[in-house]
């Protein structure tokens, strides 16, 4: 793709400088929005663009905004927790194209009629958080944030909040709990955050990448945006490519780009003469895929990936070559989820611990063949019973691993 929508810093040098960003039309959209547009008009254009949440769930952004409860105050919470293994897109956006992101947040606030946005960043982003705070200060200094923007009665304040390093705080309701100063644990839904969110007020929660799309969508219209991607998954997506790949990194490509193109054209294929074995299309949280031709020809969009038994999620594509034992991958993934389970609900808290115990035995070579079935059964038992998606991810990973790469597990047990 010649031009970028989200990773525009790759086209425009120094766009992380406010002057450069302004020179390229930065904050003109927001200024125009505040002066001339109604919140509903913004919601309508975002709705029409078909933009879907880039955090993983792919929920239509404009629709989410239109669900907002009528009560005031309202809040915008930006999910900058970016905690999915293998995901590093929001970080690049915030580091290199911060003002487009912040303008997106500002437009979202206007559409939501919120006076405060909380940017929730994972604790490890402390250095970036400092820079974002400096950028926010620049926006105050230039009158893009603060009281009575552009002579209107619109007040807008941004706050940066650092988490303490928990995967679960990327889950939107746990993020809200954490913002409120509580232990990061998901809430029951309903009520949904759009009705009862931060401090019990109607709250929009969007991912960094999602909001970074917004200024250009509003500026150039929904038809322009829909010229990228597929009908149901319009626009571009930043794919985070990592693992056994020649050229790892972020690639902003239209949604619907096949795995094969990402891996072999953009990523340069598998290094060291090895063969592609498996793909984790969305970090640890989507079921592992066998690298069959069917999978490689699958379009990376929100509808197509489920057809081959996984999810697009946050599109953190981890490539695994044929030197890797998938039982080891599952062991690592289980370890991650056991470490990150918040402990609120029983199946996830106990199931992730149990699965790890069994996988550890498999990994150490002390397991019996029955243990593979036990592992599968424990994982299946967790499925569909958890309070939030984490337990489903954790068990889904194991179920898919055992189902699709059973021989790797058998080998570990047989080699005893």
């Amino acid at each position, binding site marked *: 793709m010649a031009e970028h929508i989200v990773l525009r810093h790759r086209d425009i040098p120094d766009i992380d400088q406010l002057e450069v960003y302004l020179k390229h039309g930065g904050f003109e959209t927001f200024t125009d929005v505040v002066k001339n547009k109604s919140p509903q008009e913004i919601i309508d254009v975002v709705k029409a663009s078909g933009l879907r949440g880039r955090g993983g769930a792919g929920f239509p952004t404009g629709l989410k905004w239109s669900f907002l409860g009528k009560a005031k105050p309202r809040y915008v919470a930006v999910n900058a927790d970016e905690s999915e293994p293998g995901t590093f897109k929001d970080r690049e956006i915030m580091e290199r194209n911060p003002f487009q992101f912040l303008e997106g947040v500002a437009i979202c606030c206007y559409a939501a009629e919120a006076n405060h946005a909380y940017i929730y960043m994972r604790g490890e982003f402390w250095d970036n958080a400092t820079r974002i705070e400096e950028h926010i200060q620049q926006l105050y200094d230039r009158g893009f944030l603060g009281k009575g923007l552009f002579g209107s009665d619109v007040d807008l304040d941004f706050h940066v909040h650092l988490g303490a390093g928990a995967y679960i705080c990327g889950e939107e309701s746990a993020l809200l709990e954490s913002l409120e100063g509580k232990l990061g644990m998901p809430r029951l839904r309903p009520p949904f955050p759009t009705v009862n969110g931060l401090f019990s007020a109607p709250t929009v929660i969007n991912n960094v990448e999602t909001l970074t799309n917004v200024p250009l969508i509003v500026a150039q219209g929904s038809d322009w945006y829909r010229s990228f991607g597929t009908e149901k998954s319009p626009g571009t997506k930043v794919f985070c490519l990592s693992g056994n790949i020649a050229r790892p990194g972020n690639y902003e490509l239209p949604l619907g780009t096949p795995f094969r193109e990402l891996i072999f054209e953009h990523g340069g294929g598998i290094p060291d003469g090895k063969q592609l074995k498996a793909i984790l299309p969305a970090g640890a949280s989507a079921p592992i895929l066998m690298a069959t031709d069917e999978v490689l020809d699958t379009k990376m969009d929100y509808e197509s990936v489920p057809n081959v038994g996984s999810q697009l999620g946050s599109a953190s594509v981890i490539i695994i070559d044929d030197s890797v034992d998938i039982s080891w991958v599952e062991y690592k993934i289980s370890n991650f989820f056991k470490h990150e389970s918040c402990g*609120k609900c029983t199946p996830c808290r106990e199931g992730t611990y149990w699965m790890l115990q069994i996988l550890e035995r498999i990994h150490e070579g002390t397991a019996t063949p029955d243990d593979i079935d036990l592992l599968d059964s424990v994982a299946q038992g967790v499925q569909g019973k958890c309070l939030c998606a984490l337990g489903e991810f954790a068990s889904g990973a194991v179920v898919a691993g055992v189902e699709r790469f059973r021989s790797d597990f058998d080998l570990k047990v047989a080699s005893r």
Partner: protein
Amino acid sequence: MAEKTVTLTIQGMEVTVPAGTLLVDAAKQVGIYIPVFCYHPKLEPVGMCRMCLVEIGRPKKDRQSGEVMTDESGEPIIEFGPKLETSCTTPVGEGWVVRTSSEKALQGQKQIVEYLLTSHPLDCPVCDKGGECPLQELTMDFGSGKSRFLYDEKMLLAKHVPLGDLIFLDRERCIQCARCTRFQEEIVDDPVIGFEQRGRSLQIVTYSDPGFNSYFSGNTTDICPVGALTTADFRFEARPWELRQAASICPHCPVGCNLMVNTRRQPDQEGRVTIQRIMPRHNEAVNEIWICDKGRFAHHFTSSPRRLKSPKIRRDKEWVDCTWEEALETVARAVKKAGDGLIGVAGGRASNEDLFAFKKLVEGLGGEALLGDSMGGGDWVQEVGVGPGTNLRDLGQGDAILVVASDLHEEAPVWWLRVKQACDRGADLVLVNPRETRLDKFAGIRISCEYGEAPSIVSSLSEALASPGSGSGNLKSAAKKLAAAEHLVVFYGQEGLPPAGSQALAEACATLLVNSGHVQSPNNGLIPVWPHNNTQGAWDIGLRPAGKDLASTLDGARAIYLMASDPVGDDPKLAEQLKAAPFVVVQDLFMTETAREADVVLPAQAFAEREGTYTTGERRVQRSYMSLPAMGDARPDWLIVSQIGRQAGVSFDAGSVVSLFAEIAASILTYGELTYQSLAEFKSEWPPVRGDDLYFGGTSFANHQGLGVQLDPIQRVDKPPKVAWSHADTAPADQELLLVPVDRLLDRGTTVVPSDMLASRLQTRHIEVSPKDASRLGLQDGAEAVIEMNGSVHKIEVVIRDSVPEGSALLPRSIGVPAVEPKLAKIQPVREKQTE
């Protein structure tokens, strides 16, 4: 207005419940049990444990019209979702079909139990909860019987973690259901415990110093669905199935919480039957399923070795044990001889039967029978007390509560809890207190008030109420709120008031209630925050505090008979009057300060050793049953009194408490309808607790022994006498402060101190002063000061608190410094001795 209802089918049974009912409760109401751990009917649902998974089928609706779609036979098409759902978080829906025990649902429930058990130590044989444990019950119902989890892979965690002096945590047994933390936060607003860490390391910790600092902490052990939380005094003491149960009424405050006393023979106490634990007994109108920690833990006095075990008589200034015959004969002779020179003083701790017999005896001999409790106004409570059918749980939006001169959190914690919850439901709270209390946070209006000023403020409020628009500021808006309230309950206490002051306050409150029309009906009226559990019963029986002060009343008495009353403990100077009296007999549990001045001391039985009835501040008459054998030769108060009566020639029908109560019913207005049978009536209440529902409501006991009967207010033509009382100017002079006695829950009373576990929580010997007064008087926090009043001098520690009103010093009762009513006192720092 008819409540909107929803009809659905649960496991084949058609159920109609109010809209908004949670599925788990709807099922329970028709006897279908859905297993739960984290769900508790008194707490907000959280859906954490996932135990209550069921299959929910919803009628399929046409997308366009929203109409329910039907099949060929005209039946609605029911669609079941792919996932099991938690029935504790799901309000019922019209036309639903719910499968609670289908293969799929059952498999889900079994799976959750299996997961829970992977981290559970399975130490039921040594666990205090064993035998009444929801996890144990549900393991029997849903457990696999065989573990697929390798025992060696269990996490080993700390098993004896003191969360404070009262509650211990076993981290291995905890199933992270958050019932305890939610109770502390939602119900009692003491969020002093909470979760820390995450995942399998998620654990309960305490944030307070001292640990788990809450007056309600014991309740968490009842609702804990496993043996994770146990009480310091019951843990490892007995198995639940060894315990015998008897219903009782808490002897500590006028709330009258319903209790179940659990007893057992105690090997290390020579096989004596002792109280092993006190548990709440369900009474939705009184204490729901909660009790405070004083009620739960301060029972160890019953087995204290310091209890009086036999009658004692003074011979040559020495105490010697004597027979009951000798003691009774001596007392009978002396009181008969005294005739109209006999003065009897009975405390509000005694039962109705005791007090009735006592009054009969003393008055039968021509003497004067007095109430030992100094607070006034019980006659007004008879007139305008809350009407039958009152349940503070019903108060909410549109209702109002007025609290005057009382610190409910310290004086009657369960009332505090229920007032707080009424505020949570939207009731308006108006406070008239000179200082900040734990209710201030929930108060809509706080009317500032000096010590002693409460009666006049309530009178002004009452006037503002009678003529709308009058008054000013807070008073005006409070009057408006109270007048507009659908229901109005007024609590009054005695902080900062002498007896005449609290009498005047009761009168002012009564006038207010009459003015606003909130009398003679349910959830309307006056509730006195009495110093004792049965002070209201004493008033109903006709006992009154001494008209003048007690000292001058006792002057010149020829004989003094004190029952369940320790006036010398409150005011050591009274010892002079007792010394001067020719004959003093004291009937009590312990060798009190008062008893030390007696000629004869008679050992009385504790509340749990005998039967009786008690009347709460809400004028609910309740029955207490016998659960313990007598300590030594102690006898019930009523029996001692009637035996003295028989020998002194004043005979009344006192064959048993039942016959005495029949006499009460025959002679005391409004008790007429009551019998021991009617007091024992009960009906099942929601939520169901205990029984098959251990895991649903916790281990508090269901009430099968009587909900008690609330008395009708009396409609008298002649109103109680007016008292002349005005708030004197108590501006302290130089070096002076107004010393105000205050009630603290964990005081140093004779029925509290013997419970060792409470030692660190008991009131220390201290006074509390404001920072300003401290600097004016040169007092330092933690340093000693000297109090001088009425010629006596007391050394005491100073604690500086922001909440103390200027010009006053708070003096907790029972710490060994005379504290009957507010008094000006000279307070000076103790200076280091100057070298000469």
